[in-house]
């Protein structure tokens, strides 16, 4: 069955991405660069949504709902991250003030 083969190939791809992600976690990356390990996870989500969840094959509204969910998630995470990413902390001496 062609669809079964297609699904098994997708599963193989997911396992390969998982292996890449697992291996990348042992790389000596800078603390701030380590979230790049999420790239294989993002690709895995794309594979699951397109193959297992049939995002391309289903009715038109599902792509709209998926895009809307993703857009609002980006707005939530983007706006929410703006403060910690841009704030500069000026440390002040709090001892020996007398």
């Amino acid at each position, binding site marked *: *069955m062609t*669809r*079964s083969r297609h*699904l*098994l190939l*997708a*599963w193989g791809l*997911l*396992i390969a991405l*998982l292996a890449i*992600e*697992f291996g*990348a*976690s*042992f*790389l*000596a*990356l800078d*603390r*701030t660069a*380590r*979230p790049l*390990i*999420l790239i294989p*996870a993002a690709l*895995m*989500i794309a594979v*699951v*949504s397109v*193959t*297992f*969840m*049939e995002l391309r*094959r*289903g*009715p038109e*509204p*599902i792509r709209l*709902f*998926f895009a*809307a*969910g*993703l857009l*609002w*998630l980006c707005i*939530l*995470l983007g706006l*929410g*991250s703006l403060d*910690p*990413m841009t704030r500069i902390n000026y440390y002040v001496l709090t001892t020996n003030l007398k």
Partner: protein
Amino acid sequence: MSEVSSTQEFQYSSPRHQAESAISGMWLFLATEMLFFGPLFLAWIYSRHWNQQGFDAGAQQTELIIGTVNTLVLVTSSLIYTLGVSFIEAGDSRKLIQCCVGAWLLGLVFLWLKFGVEWRHDFERRLFPASDFAIDDPHRDGALLFFVFYFLGTAVHGLHMIVGLILVGWIIFRARRKEFSAGFYTPVSVVGLYWSFVDMVWIVLYPLIYLIGRGA
């Protein structure tokens, strides 16, 4: 999506319309679920940004092997369930039941590894964020925040897994009563979407919990 339902409700213009409405409705629900998990991911970004060393010290205490095996288990469970959907599309109800049982058992394995093994080890090692927390200064505060994220994230995901297991069990029950055929399998597809979504949430949680702080 090409199924022809013999159980068309009056409010739909055609069986196809009914099936597409159910599928679209589930996707709309999943879009709200994305926003349900969004603040959890934002909490991770915010907390790690201000407490990178402590957060990573917490992540290094997690059980990488169990987390990785669980990812493998969940991805495979999602594959097996989707294979079941493709079998019922071809009218093979017996293989649908076999696939659903396989997916259900793998879901159970995930829950056992997560809560029966991993959480138990975490409690034994005093990693629950409470007064007798095992990690001391200077990384205590960040590690505490990490484990708040860890326990909350895995508990909420585990709750979704339990709901998923109930739904897959419901599909097995209905399939055994021969309620699904090549002409009607919308509930099977809808539950499959939910099951794959729970898998997707874990795909995000896995690197946040086990990988990003690991080699830092």
